[in-house]
């Protein structure tokens, strides 16, 4: 295996030397040794760029976690009154930002749970099934536990982000997000 490209054997149809040929001829040589050389070069470039992309990706993850730490505590938000939600019913709300869909479920007379509504597989909205004690994602038949948010069946592998709740004076407040760290 040499580092220099092998000599060309094939003559271009116009008969001119390789230096005068268009660039695509160098990229797609007819000679097998030249082709192998080009393929090796392309493969080495692919490896280099792919590993570079992985390095950048790692740095990006670190940056994101640092940013989320400096962002401060999420706000406290009034979600619903205890009286307006019967047992076995759910209520949608947005928390901590306006676009983040979450679902609040009253599982018993005293107990409320709230989770982010996006399935951890491909971000479809999950549907609470309090009678069966689970969340169901209809896209790919993903199932999460109603009480812990842990994946029970289907493609999801990560737990749903839990919204911590605080009940004061007959009202339910969302106070934070417990996200599973990757």
């Amino acid at each position, binding site marked *: 295996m040499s580092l220099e490209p*092998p000599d060309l*054997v*094939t*003559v*271009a*149809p116009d*008969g001119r030397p390789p230096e005068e040929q268009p660039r695509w001829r160098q990229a*797609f040589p*007819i*000679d*097998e*040794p030249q*082709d192998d050389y080009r393929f090796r070069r392309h493969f080495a470039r692919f490896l280099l760029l792919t590993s570079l992309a992985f390095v950048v990706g790692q740095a990006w993850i670190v940056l994101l976690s640092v940013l989320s730490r400096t962002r401060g505590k999420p706000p406290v938000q009034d979600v619903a009154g205890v009286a307006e939600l019967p047992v076995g019913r759910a209520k949608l709300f947005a928390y901590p930002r306006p676009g983040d869909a979450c679902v609040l479920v009253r599982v018993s007379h005293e107990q409320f749970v709230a989770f982010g509504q996006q399935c951890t597989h491909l971000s479809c909205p999950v549907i609470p099934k309090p009678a069966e004690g689970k969340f169901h994602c209809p896209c790919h038949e993903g199932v999460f536990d109603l009480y812990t948010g842990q994946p029970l069946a289907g493609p999801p592998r990560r737990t749903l982000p839990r919204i911590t709740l605080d009940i004061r004076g007959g009202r339910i407040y969302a106070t934070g997000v417990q996200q599973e760290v990757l």
Partner: protein
Amino acid sequence: MPVPEAQEFFIDPARCIGCNACVQACTECDTHKGYAMIQLDYIDHASSPQTVPVVCMHCQSPTCAEVCPADAIKRTSDGVVQTARKPRCIACNNCVLACPFGVPKMHTEMRLMMKCDMCYDRTSVGKKPMCASVCPSQALYFGTRTEIEKLRPNSRPINTFSFGAQMITTKVNMLVPKQAAATHLDVIAALHESTIGNSIEDDLLLAGMEATHEP
């Protein structure tokens, strides 16, 4: 291992007896997957049993590889144009249509163009190609230039062809009479000769070609 440079392929169409032994032998070559990559073409089937064996001429500037959109046809350092690379070939038939000699064979069931590769498994280890090893009249000969000069004192090898405006230099040689003044062979010349019993005007396509050739 490359094919030795001294070993060359010579075709002497005048000696072909049309026995099809080469076609049968070709199917038995390990690189051809049981298919014959050689064929016998009748020069004028109606009036003569004369046949010509057609093998790949292994052009210096292979038209099949030039027209390949998938970069699949490659030529090894010894000048042998190989069968299309299986992972690359898209079975588009461009090479089949472009080859001046009509050599590439398309196998749509395999999605692969296969062509005469001079029995690369044999010639690269110093053996003769299948067809040349069985030809009873030695119309197909594989050997050195000195050997062919001794065997055919009245012939000389020629490896330049014209195909319309295209000039082709090949690795494979065609034997022509020694006295012939020809410097190259015109691949499509036979198309313009009228065949016995048929007027050239019968063929609309050829008539059109004739018209464009005349000033």
